[in-house]
């Protein structure tokens, strides 16, 4: 078992050959990766891939068979209390004492950690928009409300690392969007590192700068999601439904920097790749030539398809 200390001080979470065997079967198998301050990282994998198991080991709910988890340089195995104090988390569903109010539940966690003030409780409940429901008993909460209270609970002690297992589970579309926004915001503003699991690549794409794909407990790939590229220069794959595909293709071929144009004269659909700031020019040219445009769509399947290929579709481990 290696005990090498982290060298880069901005590394908040470090997994080092993390392995969990139950009954001889490796559920998580030699997982290693780092997460730095302010990073939002997605942990992606099909059902049964080992996402929840990995997160349980990170927060010390279950023991590890081999390897180590270090949080801000402290091993969760050998210095649990020093390591866990930097972590806030929700593993699977957020569960509270149903017969107590949301406020009383948060007070429970306030009493468990030194230095959490009443002002901090007010601050986090406002952040998750729960200030009006806080006096109600938790048994009267919807899943979405519990999810929000779960986030409040996780942020209470100003952690440096958030571990969130499918945090958008049970939220309505507006709630999902809101959650995404404030996760991004707290990562940026407070420099919190976030590890968030999901089986939906589309969701991960929208909030993470990096995605770690696992399957059957093993690392499949680590990929940066092109947030660094400025959106203007970003090459998009576009599909267009037009009145006459042949005519449209002629116009497109005349323009510079548009790649891999394909047309289907039967469905009158053309697909091509170009930079975002070229789109207005192209649309103007097509209109000027009298090509009818019915639909313009971005084709985002590439990463999704790649994920399917890597993980063998929806096969459950």
């Amino acid at each position, binding site marked *: 078992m290696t005990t090498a200390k982290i060298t880069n001080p901005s590394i908040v979470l470090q997994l080092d050959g993390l392995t969990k065997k139950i009954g001889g079967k490796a559920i998580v198998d030699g997982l290693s990766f780092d997460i730095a301050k302010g990073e939002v990282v997605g942990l992606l994998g099909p059902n049964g891939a080992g996402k929840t198991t990995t997160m349980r080991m990170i927060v010390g709910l*279950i*023991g590890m068979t081999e390897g180590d988890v270090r949080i801000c340089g402290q091993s969760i195995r050998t210095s649990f*209390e*020093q390591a866990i104090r930097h*972590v806030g988390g929700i593993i699977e569903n957020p*569960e509270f*004492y149903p017969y107590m109010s949301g406020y*009383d539940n948060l007070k*429970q966690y306030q009493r*468990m950690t030194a230095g959490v003030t009443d002002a901090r409780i007010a601050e986090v409940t406002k952040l998750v928009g729960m200030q009006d429901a806080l006096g109600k008993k938790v048994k009267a909460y919807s899943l979405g409300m519990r999810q929000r209270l779960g986030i409040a609970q996780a942020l209470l002690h100003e952690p440096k690392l958030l571990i969130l297992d499918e945090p958008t589970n049970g939220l309505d579309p507006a709630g999902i969007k809101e959650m995404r926004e404030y996760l991004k915001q707290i990562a940026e503003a407070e420099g919190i590192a976030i590890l968030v699991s999901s089986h939906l690549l589309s969701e991960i794409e929208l909030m993470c700068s990096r995605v770690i794909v696992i399957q059957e407990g093993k690392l499949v790939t680590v990929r940066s999601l092109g947030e660094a590229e400025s959106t203007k220069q970003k090459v998009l794959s576009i599909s267009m439904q037009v009145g006459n595909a042949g005519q449209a293709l002629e116009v497109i071929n005349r323009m510079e920097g548009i790649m891999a144009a394909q047309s289907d004269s039967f469905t009158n659909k053309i697909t091509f790749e170009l930079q975002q700031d070229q789109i207005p020019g192209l649309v103007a040219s097509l209109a000027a030539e009298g090509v009818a445009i019915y639909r313009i769509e971005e084709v985002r399947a590439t990463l999704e398809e790649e994920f399917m290929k890597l993980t063998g579709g929806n096969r459950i481990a």
Partner: protein
Amino acid sequence: MRNFTGLLINEWLKLSKKKSFFVAYAILAVVFGIMGYAFYEIQPDGLTSTVDFATGTIMLQAAGQLVPVLAVLAAAGSVTQEYRYGTIKFLLIRAQSRHKILASKYIVMVVYTLTLVLTTAALAVAAGYIVYGGGSGESTWTDFLGNIASLAVYSIVFVTMTFMIGILTKSNGASIGIGIFSMMAGSLLVMLLSRYTITKYLLFANTDLSVYRSDAVPIEGMTLVFSIVILLVYMALFLSVSFAVFKKRDIA
């Protein structure tokens, strides 16, 4: 240390914020109310004073039996409810060791049990005073205090055992079942096996210390000190198992 006080407050609130919290005390009040009334109506022989009434009713063979039952009901839930609600996952990811968390749970269970014992004692004296208004009889206050102590010891022993079963089984129902069953069947077992001397080492042969106030010792050669030592050994065993298992347990 301030943190540990916080844990104790948390555990007490988990118990007292439940609607059912007052039910236990209410049951005791109702039972002593009924008993007081019945004694007033029937005027049984040999009972002539407040102390007689109080000493007699808090015995394990009388209304006192309610106390360990109510205490076991609560002790079974202490750890198992955290599993049932799923709150164990939030509880154990704080900067608090599992040992401290479990210690706070156990201490609060013992305190709760003592509140039941003291409530029972107070109710017994109150009901006895209403019915007999003092008076003089066979029993002394020393007998009464002795019975309170026996009741407390008996209750705490079963609370400790049930607490451990809760950790081992993670099931509230199973813990209540095993806790109460062993309370009932334990003394029967001791009776059946009383001709073997080895029986005196059984937990159940030693749980009721009030036998040493009379000569009805369950098995020849047993003494108060012997029983206390046996109880301490069992308690140490139950607690070691509880803490060791809770520390190591994977929370899945």
